[in-house]
């Protein structure tokens, strides 16, 4: 199923990304930030995909660790890699926006800090998988579980840590006229995510199959 729908999904995502600038250009200007607010249409959907992917990785890791399903491990790996990719988009577009809106590249705001930490946990996950040697799949599944459990604590502690030093932040409340462009972008990112995820999972499945065939040949 995945294989047959891969090309149409990717093509649809490409068309939607091609059309996105038109919708974004037609959306109204935000009154205080002006043009720079347009980065929002790429920044927020990537952040959404990053959190979805982190969730996918965490759930799959739990299934792998306790249900011992080898495919869940491959799902978790694909999820973790996509957290790193979409997180990078978030962490590149974020400071560009912040530089114009707040005047600084980075602010130790609660949401920024917790996103950065979540991203770092998944980078640690990938480092463990790459350099951990044999058995790293189980270890990284344990790490992903701990990372998931950590999210509320990070969010709470960073929030309290910051509210001790309050600063005015610009909270974008969505104008109804901005909604079409925003949801268009969200859908485009979701399709892109699904296509890349399917491709990555297929690659990992093929690798596992190849390894199984090798082992069969050896015997």
């Amino acid at each position, binding site marked *: 199923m995945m294989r047959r729908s891969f090309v149409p999904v990717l093509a649809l995502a490409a068309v939607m990304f091609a059309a996105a600038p038109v919708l974004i250009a037609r959306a109204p200007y935000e009154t205080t930030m002006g043009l720079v607010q347009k980065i929002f249409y790429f920044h927020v959907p990537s952040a959404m995909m990053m959190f979805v992917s982190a969730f996918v990785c965490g759930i799959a890791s739990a299934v792998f660790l306790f249900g011992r399903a080898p495919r869940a491990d491959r799902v978790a790996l694909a999820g973790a890699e996509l957290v790193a990719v979409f997180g990078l988009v978030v962490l590149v577009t974020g400071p560009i926006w912040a530089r114009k809106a707040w005047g600084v590249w980075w602010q130790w705001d609660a949401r920024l800090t917790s996103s950065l930490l979540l991203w770092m946990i998944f980078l640690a996950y990938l*480092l*463990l998988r790459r*350099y951990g*040697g044999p058995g*790293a799949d189980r270890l990284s599944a*344990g790490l992903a579980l701990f990372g998931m459990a950590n999210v509320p604590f990070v969010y709470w*502690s960073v929030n309290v*840590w910051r509210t001790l030093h309050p600063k005015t932040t610009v909270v974008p409340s969505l104008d109804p006229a901005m909604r079409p462009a925003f949801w268009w972008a969200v859908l485009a990112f979701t399709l892109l995510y699904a296509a890349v995820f399917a491709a990555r999972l297929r690659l990992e499945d093929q690798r596992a199959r190849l390894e199984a065939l090798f082992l069969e040949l050896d015997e």
Partner: protein
Amino acid sequence: MSDPGSLATFLRVTWLVTRKDLTVEMRSREILYTTTFFAASCVLVFAFSFVRDGRPLDAAAAGILWIAIAFAGTLALGRTFERERVNETLHALMLAPSDRPAVYAGKLAGILVLLGAVEAVLVPLVALLFQAPLFAHPGHLALLLVVGTLGFAAVGTLFAAMLVRARSRDVLLPVLLYPITVPVIIAGVRGTAALIAPDAGGVAAARAWIGMLVFFDAVFVTLALWTFEAVMTE
């Protein structure tokens, strides 16, 4: 031998593992001495970066204390499990017909005793060198240190145990441990700062941080006991 699933057996195995670790440690005192010295040299290095014109920066002491604890803790965790790896004794522990979570609890208790000894040296040292009134609220500070160290060590013991079989374990331990224990570091630093700097919230703020740490400890000790068996199975 009593029923293997009972609490009494669990506690007995925990105690045996802890006693074994402490006996091994007391024969050489290797980890205790090296870790304490390392923590003290951390404090010294920070002193050079955070003291200007003979006066420490405000509330720097809280940060320095907790960074030294985190660094020294990583070192102690690494060494404790390196000892088990070199002698293949972790494998033997895993083969023992006992609850595996009890092995984890025993290792955790051993690490806590070690870190407690390091902190007993570290806290007066930081108070002395940075003129920090760390002993103004001794009860609250002790509580903060206990729950903070427990949170750090609960995650650290599980990760160090998992990494025993992994390649590049020395580098990977801090890489995995620090992002996960950030809430402990924030709570420890902010809680300690609240106790030593009057404008940082005082005892009420410290209590809020201690509350969060108790919750963190409960979640992560439970999660570690629950996953220990699964991640340690080869």
